[in-house]
């Protein structure tokens, strides 16, 4: 099989726990099989630092919580032909979105002032600009496939990917669900 025919795949980790990526790594020996057909061009698990201009499949884990997340989601939508929301945070907002029930200022104070003993205070740098509301990815860009689960199991991810590679559109609700 020539290199040119390989499907290009990009993944990114927005506001989530990285569990979905861990689940991806749990594919174990199936990763080798995957690597024969798929070229991972951008991901937290590879070294590449820049998202290529054109990618076949994009996978996003996590919810949109910051301006950076928003930017990334939009960039993925622009450059990936087929975009997948992987995991409950990406699909529904899940745990990160539980802060939506509270005022953002209260949340920040809780995290950086009330519960901190050494040098309480909001950080002045390296905290990305937070959106007032945490959002699922499809509420900011169009998404083509939704894979629920917290995290979706390695088998689920494998089934989704193999179906896609076979040219079919999988129905993840057949083998996973919210909270699975």
């Amino acid at each position: 099989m020539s290199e040119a025919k390989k499907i290009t795949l990009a993944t990114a980790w927005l506001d989530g726990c990285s569990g979905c990526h861990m689940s991806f790594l749990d594919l174990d020996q199936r990763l080798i099989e995957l690597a024969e057909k798929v070229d991972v061009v951008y991901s937290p698990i590879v070294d590449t630092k820049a998202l290529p201009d054109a990618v076949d499949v994009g996978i996003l884990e996590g919810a949109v919580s910051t301006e950076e997340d928003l930017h990334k989601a939009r960039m993925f939508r622009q450059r990936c032909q087929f975009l997948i929301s992987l995991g409950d945070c990406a699909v529904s907002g899940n745990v990160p979105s539980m802060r939506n029930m509270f005022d953002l200022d209260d949340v920040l104070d809780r995290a950086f002032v009330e519960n901190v003993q050494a040098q309480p205070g909001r950080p002045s740098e390296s905290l990305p600009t937070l959106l007032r509301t945490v959002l699922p990815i499809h509420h900011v860009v169009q998404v083509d496939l939704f894979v629920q689960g917290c995290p979706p199991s390695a088998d689920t991810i494998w089934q989704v990917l193999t179906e896609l590679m076979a040219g079919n559109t999988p129905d993840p609700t057949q083998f996973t669900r919210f909270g699975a």
Partner: protein
Amino acid sequence: MTHPPVASNPGPKVRVVTLKIDDHDVGARETDSILEIAHANGIRIPALCYLDGLSTWGACRLCMVEIEGVSKPVSACSTTASEGMKITTNSERLKRYRRMILELLFAERNHVCSVCVSNGHCELQDLAAECGMDHVRVPYRNATYNIDSSHDLFRVDHNRCVVCTRCVRVCDEIEGAHTWDVMGRGVNCQVITDLNQPWGDSQSCTSCGKCVQVCPTGALVKKGTAAGEMEKHDDFVPYLAQMRKRQ
């Protein structure tokens, strides 16, 4: 000592009808609802507020079915059978409606499955999977609802309530306590104990726990359960309801 057989009151005569549900020819009493007939014949119709043994409520609108010759879909739980009816339970249109109704429910309150004590044992969660509801298109409302942990044994988390009123009905119709009721209107509807007193202060609650067992979601749960640990059993309801009727 054996009692002589007592002639039970046969009640008004009920006619038997035949009808067609999807591709199945079925027979039923004309007083039976379409939902009861379908379930008795192994035909699944999704439903959330309906529970065998409790009165019909007709509020979740998930059990909508189509009857040939009737333009609007009807709720299977509250529509009785009639001779020659032809019913479709799973058309594309009905699937679309069910999906949207589930989306509305998930967006209305804060159903975060992954951290719910009922995760894996939740009817709402199962319905989403069954009906192929894989994402919610409408905006999440992100409204904050209360959690009442004042009862010694149980907790009510209104964030996970779908206002199906199974708790209200089981408490009134089976337990006979009528501790639960509904207050407010529209999206501000909420189940309440007594006159909106903390559950732990309720004078009428017998702590029987029936409400917890019939609750389809993680809204009413036993205390001391962690994520995924709350399993419920509502199969006692039809038995108790039947026994009540015999008295």
